[in-house]
């Protein structure tokens, strides 16, 4: 091991190519991971903020808020289920909003939620025609006290405060009373109007085993509902699963590339060092020690690349102007990406094992002499 590290100190140029290549891969891994986290956070914030263990949708909706309808009768049945401690209605309208001072075609995407149970960071529902706004709107020129005009009907909604991390399906959100939501929906989406007391979904707090309560709710409504955990409801938002799947696939391919790069680099290095290994074996070095040196060098190379890559990811997080790309750096992502890169390097270096084992001290000495 000491020999391996000494070689890296004395001939840093020999390892520079591998460090540079792996650094590029580390940057790519962290950029992709940050993009994935940013996209998911921007899509699911509104659901993650719900004060609920369960979300109840109508059976035919396939967990889609826009296609779900919960009548007051169904709600009463849900509320009566043993284990249900609190029930709140929720509904959302996805529209475009006109911001005061912006051009006539310069609109922003908005998801207006009507809520009964206050999500984290929000107080109880505001008065009619008022709403708390997602902090992301500040970057789009929205200020406290502004009145936004929603949808083709230009329904006015006044912003009375801001709240963090509550985006939905990639759009910023407004949080209003159920009546404001119904008025907005009715004025702008006549085909999706909702009657008095009707919500798109229910958020439910439970006592005891939440999954057992979910089953009891669906039984109590005679199959008219589908009850899922808050995490499953977040996953069901359009595009979340697909984005996660595509990005994880890209990240997987990137790791395979890292393995291939390390494998080929150390195979090349091993070929160049066959004579040296032969000499070392001839003077008593064991194959295990030599291979251990290769692995140590691979780990050091990967750690250097991960460190530089993490620095890049942090710099990007600090300097990226808000609203440009959906990049969000989570500490877990840095740790997991770095560990994955080191593991890929170990796996890649393992491809040189056979070559190290096959080194014949006698022929190596013969070649050298």
């Amino acid at each position: 091991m000491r020999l391996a590290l000494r070689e890296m100190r004395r001939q840093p140029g020999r390892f520079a190519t591998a460090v540079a290549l792996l650094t590029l891969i580390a940057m790519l891994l962290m950029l992709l991971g940050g993009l994935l986290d940013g996209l998911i956070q921007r899509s699911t914030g509104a659901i993650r903020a719900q004060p609920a263990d369960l979300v109840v949708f109508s059976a035919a909706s396939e967990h889609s808020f826009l296609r779900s309808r919960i009548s007051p009768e169904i709600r009463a049945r849900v509320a009566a289920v043993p284990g249900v401690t609190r029930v709140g209605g929720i509904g959302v309208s996805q529209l475009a909003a006109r911001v005061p001072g912006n051009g006539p075609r310069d609109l922003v995407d908005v998801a207006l939620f009507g809520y009964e149970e206050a999500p984290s960071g929000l107080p109880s529902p505001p008065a009619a025609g008022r709403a708390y706004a997602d902090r992301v709107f500040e970057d789009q020129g929205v200020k406290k006290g502004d009145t936004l005009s929603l949808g083709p009907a230009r329904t006015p909604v006044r912003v009375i405060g801001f709240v963090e991390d509550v985006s939905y399906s990639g759009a910023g959100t407004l949080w209003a009373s159920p009546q404001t939501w119904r008025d907005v929906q009715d004025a702008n989406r006549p085909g999706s109007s909702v009657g008095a007391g009707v919500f798109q979904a229910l958020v439910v707090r439970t006592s005891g085993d939440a999954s057992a309560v979910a089953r009891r709710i669906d039984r109590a409504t005679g199959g008219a509902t589908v009850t899922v955990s808050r995490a499953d409801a977040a996953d069901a938002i359009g595009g979340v699963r697909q984005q996660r799947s595509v990005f994880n696939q890209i990240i997987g391919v990137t790791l395979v590339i890292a393995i291939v790069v390390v494998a080929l680099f150390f195979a090349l290095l091993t070929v160049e060092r066959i004579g040296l290994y032969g000499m070392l074996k001839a003077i008593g070095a064991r194959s295990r020690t030599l291979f251990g040196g290769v692995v140590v060098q691979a780990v050091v190379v990967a750690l250097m690349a991960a460190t530089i890559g993490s620095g890049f990811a942090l710099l990007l997080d600090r300097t990226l102007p808000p609203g440009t790309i959906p990049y969000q750096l989570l500490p877990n992502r840095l740790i997991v990406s770095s560990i994955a890169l080191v593991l890929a390097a170990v796996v890649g270096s393992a491809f040189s094992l056979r070559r190290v084992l096959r080194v014949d001290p006698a022929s190596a000495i013969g070649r050298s002499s």
Partner: protein
Amino acid sequence: MIVWKEMARAKVRFGLLIGAIALLVFLILFQQALRDGLITSFTGAIEHQTAPVLVYSTDGRRNLQSSSITPELAAQVRAVDGAAAVGRIGQSTLSVRAGGSITAAAVIGYERRDLGAPQDLVAGRYPAAEGEGVANETDASEGFGLGKVVRIAPGGYPIRIVGQSRDTNLQASPTVFVRYGSWEQAVLAANPDARKPLPNALGLRPAAGVSPDELVARVNRLNPELEALTRHDAATKAPGVAQVSRSFLVIFLLYGLVVPLVIGLFFLIVTLQKARTLTLLRAIGARSRTLVWALIVQVLVVVGLGIAIGTLLYLPVSFLRVGSIPLQFDTTAVVGWGLGILALGVASSWFSARRVLRIEPAEALSGGGLGA
């Protein structure tokens, strides 16, 4: 001759590289088909419908379902100079019972067949009455086959599939084109609280002597609340299309990096391993050009075989569906990627070729080579 002998003797070594390249080619072609399938599934219904110009409300942000045309806006568009015909188009994503299960489907209603219906049918006929629809041929396995009846859930409004079209999906969902009245009834059936829905867009046909682009400019000058787009722009500028294309571009760039890296490093290692042999060959009179040519022939054979096997692996997969996305065998993509990978492979052998050219025949006497 020596090229073939070497490859025949080191079958495992070259076989592994051919396998790795075949896998990469398969992955590239699969991802390409996935990208094309995704884009077609998201916007095929827009690209392959009959209206040359579509008018959305600015509020719709180029998304058909989010757009909403009020009667006042519709009246302004109908009065525009240069429009030969105007037809309403409605679209909703509704839950539908098809083939025994509930699924989300995009229902598109058109007022005029020449302004919003699929351009061509591959089977059956266009709807002649309310409650009839045309579905995409690849959705037949999801219960949208010719002659099948799908029902809006809840509400139960029935739509009989009387025709099949190609590449006409929207939002990666099964898509059914119906008459405008059928769409209105489907929306009202799905939501008992609904009022009569407004059209989501208007389809326009330019008058003789007016191009679609001119008509688009005229409509956009009418009112900032309207956004007119040509059929092609409406498909390519739809939300999400650019993001999908960019995401896949990143994947393809990664592959563009890994392919030459794998091939280049492999042949570099092989060249180093046979350094002594190459030096001896040079010492007995073999010219550098001959040795480099042998290397290039090996690269071409290995990469060519990899491409062929990768394409064969991709062939059966290209007829499958990934989730709701149907894949297609794209000959242009196969030829394009094949030539590209071949070029990358040859380019990446430059490092090995340089090593071969640096061989000093005199070193054969001292038993040296390329630094091995």
